[in-house]
């Protein structure tokens, strides 16, 4: 039988009861909890022949595997965050055993409590802005030039106009994105800008000019969405995603420092 590790999904405020519905994690294993003084860790066992260091190096190069794992991880985080304040843990965090997770909760109790207090009653919203496609580029103008009888020249002129136009569109969009981000930051408790997605990954040809995340009080969500709607147009397309678990606002880097303490237990 393969050795198992402990996959950690999230740290949350202890509900004092199980989740409303059982949830299945990565590798098809049911998720269970480890609790310590008001904190709860959601974990599941994973086979180390798949989640050990060497196999992981290969798996992480496989986008399908990453996608499947990300969705399973997300499913657990979603289920938990719908019921209690949650700090998601970064994708693929595997402990050698449950005792180590328990120790993490014990030694980093105050850090987690602070992070959880920050996100309590709040949700994350994502807003992406794209430079709106250059509508009605310049074909009309081009046609009239074409009639002058020099199609080659007309083509180049059209081409130039088109590039210039695309450039203007992008510049205006980038400026507008700054304005949008400032307005959304003002309408939220905290904000974070992710790197704009490459067109090949975003699936849209239009350049992304903003990939923002905003932490919003639950009872002010409608207000926030209204602010987003009010910012639409003006050279950019806005895409709203969420609400998300507060992934972008629970960044907490627990390096080896906390774990060294384990030695004297």
């Amino acid at each position, binding site marked *: 039988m393969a050795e198992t590790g402990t996959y950690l999904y999230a740290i949350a405020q202890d509900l004092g009861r199980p989740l409303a519905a059982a949830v299945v994690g990565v590798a098809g294993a049911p998720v269970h909890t480890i609790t310590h003084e008001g904190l709860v860790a959601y974990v599941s066992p994973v086979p180390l022949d798949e989640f050990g260091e060497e196999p992981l190096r290969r798996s992480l190069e496989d986008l399908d595997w990453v996608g499947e794992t990300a969705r399973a991880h997300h499913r657990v985080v979603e289920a938990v965050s719908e019921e209690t304040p949650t700090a998601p843990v970064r994708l693929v965090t595997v402990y050698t055993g449950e005792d180590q997770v328990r120790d993490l909760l014990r030694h980093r109790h105050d850090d987690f409590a602070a992070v959880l207090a920050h996100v309590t009653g709040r949700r994350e919203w994502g807003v992406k802005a794209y430079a709106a496609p250059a509508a009605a580029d310049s074909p009309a103008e081009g046609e009239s030039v074409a009639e002058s009888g020099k199609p080659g020249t007309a083509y180049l002129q059209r081409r130039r106009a088109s590039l210039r136009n695309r450039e203007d569109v992008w510049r205006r969009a980038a400026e507008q994105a700054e304005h949008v981000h400032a307005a959304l930051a003002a309408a939220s408790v905290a904000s974070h800008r992710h790197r704009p997605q490459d067109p090949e990954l975003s699936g849209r040809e239009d350049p992304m000019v903003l990939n923002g995340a905003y932490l919003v009080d639950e009872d002010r969500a409608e207000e926030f969405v209204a602010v987003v709607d009010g910012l639409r147009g003006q050279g950019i397309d806005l895409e709203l995603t969420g609400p998300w678990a507060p*992934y972008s606002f629970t960044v907490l880097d627990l390096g080896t420092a906390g774990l060294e303490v384990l030695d004297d237990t």
Partner: protein
Amino acid sequence: MTPDRRPRGAALAAQGRLPAERVALVDLLDRLLAGGVVVSGDLVLSIADIDLVRISLRALITSVRASDTIPSAHPPGAVTVVRTSEATTPASAPGPPDHGAPR
């Protein structure tokens, strides 16, 4: 001189877009790989130790782009504006300047 045989839109359309499911995955990976609690150390294995996903995604982007003719239109003189914007915001500029014309 052939200034441009394949406009950007056509080039991208020809490749086909990523399916909707994957598009959402990208939003998810933004968060799962850049957000959340990071633990690393002897008793744990984490992305912090194996920083390959980023490399993998970058490889994906690069490989897709390498076969792409996007920025190849080296238009005559007047249209140097394209470059200025690159300098302003490289991350979201319309196209990398260093691709050269595919032959």
